């Protein structure tokens, strides 16, 4: 039942938004096609501005992931973390989820296939994955679009938000599923 509702929302959210925007505009006698072209022209400029920022951060993160440092860190910390019901399998996800969306999805799929899908570990991984956002990518895209080079406290705030997400995932998963 709930699953059907979710599928419906996932399917209809985008069409409803586009329909609403276009219909209101047509009712107000706005030349929708011309205005669309006018706005869409900015797309190229914005994306070209973003590219250098994107290359800088994605190359650095790719290098870090290729070095194997994340896995080693996960191994070193696993003993301590098992004590607070934080399975070692989850650790790479906690690191990677702020860095790369596709990598996080890969790690998450691995966890689910290596563990029982109905286990605490899988549920915790699901919550952590569902609450994640690729902080560094977001920073690069947004600041890249407007050419801001000094981020002030934006990076630190993003990392704090990630930490809250990780800690809360464990707290909530223990409460619901342990």
């Amino acid at each position, binding site marked *: 039942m709930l699953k059907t509702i979710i599928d419906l929302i996932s399917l209809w959210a985008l069409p409803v938004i586009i329909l609403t925007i276009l219909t209101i505009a047509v009712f107000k006698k706005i030349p929708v096609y011309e205005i669309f072209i006018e706005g869409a022209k900015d797309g190229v400029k914005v994306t070209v501005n973003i590219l250098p920022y994107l290359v800088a951060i994605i190359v650095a993160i790719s*290098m870090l992931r290729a070095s194997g440092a994340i896995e080693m860190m996960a191994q070193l910390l696993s003993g301590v973390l098992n004590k607070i019901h934080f399975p070692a399998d989850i650790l790479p996800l906690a690191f990677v989820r702020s860095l790369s969306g596709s990598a996080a999805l890969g790690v998450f799929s691995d966890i689910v296939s290596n563990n029982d899908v*109905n286990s605490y570990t899988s549920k915790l991984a699901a919550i952590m994955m569902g609450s994640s956002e690729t902080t560094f990518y977001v920073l690069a895209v947004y600041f890249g679009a407007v050419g801001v080079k000094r981020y002030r406290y934006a990076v630190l705030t993003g990392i704090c938000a990630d930490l809250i997400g990780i800690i*809360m995932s464990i707290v909530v998963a223990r409460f619901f599923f342990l």
Partner: protein
Amino acid sequence: MNYIWYFLIVFSIIFGALNSTLSEVVNAILSGVQLSVKIALTLLGIMTFWLGIMKIAEKSGLVEFLSKLLRPIAKLIFPEIPSDSKIIGDVAMNFSANALGLANAATPMGIKAISGMQELNKDKESASDSMCTLLAMNTAGFQLIPATVIAILAASGCKNPTEIIVPTLIVTSTAFIGAIIIAKMFKHIFPPQISKEEKDA
């Protein structure tokens, strides 16, 4: 950011050398560049489409309507933005798209919001307080239904994949509110830096 970036690259190379993964690290430069271009290409199409749609939303007064509707809350979260500004409408649309899990639509809407903030920004090279708050909202990952995760759980034979919705919502709401509060606190600890040109003048 200068130090973080330097650290990421230097650490990766040194660690790669010690861990005998140096060739992988070097290859990662090329694959990282290719990945960036791939993402940028996808972004180019999405950005073009949604900036077009957003222009229509703006011209029809929809963005302005949202701005007016949310003025009381917006004043609390973005005190620096004048109350008659359309930026709040863009922020609202960015937030709604994120909440619905429409990441593709959310990014261009957020870009519109941050562009508006850049016009108000005094130092164009340095992030303003409103920008940091907007980024805090976006990096917290607030989402009503984590559809992708539910789909993977369901595909792996999970008995009741939707039971993660409420826990996930609790986590993202806390992270979202927490991030905004933290941004407000950091605002006083990290005042805007004076740029070199201003110093010289």
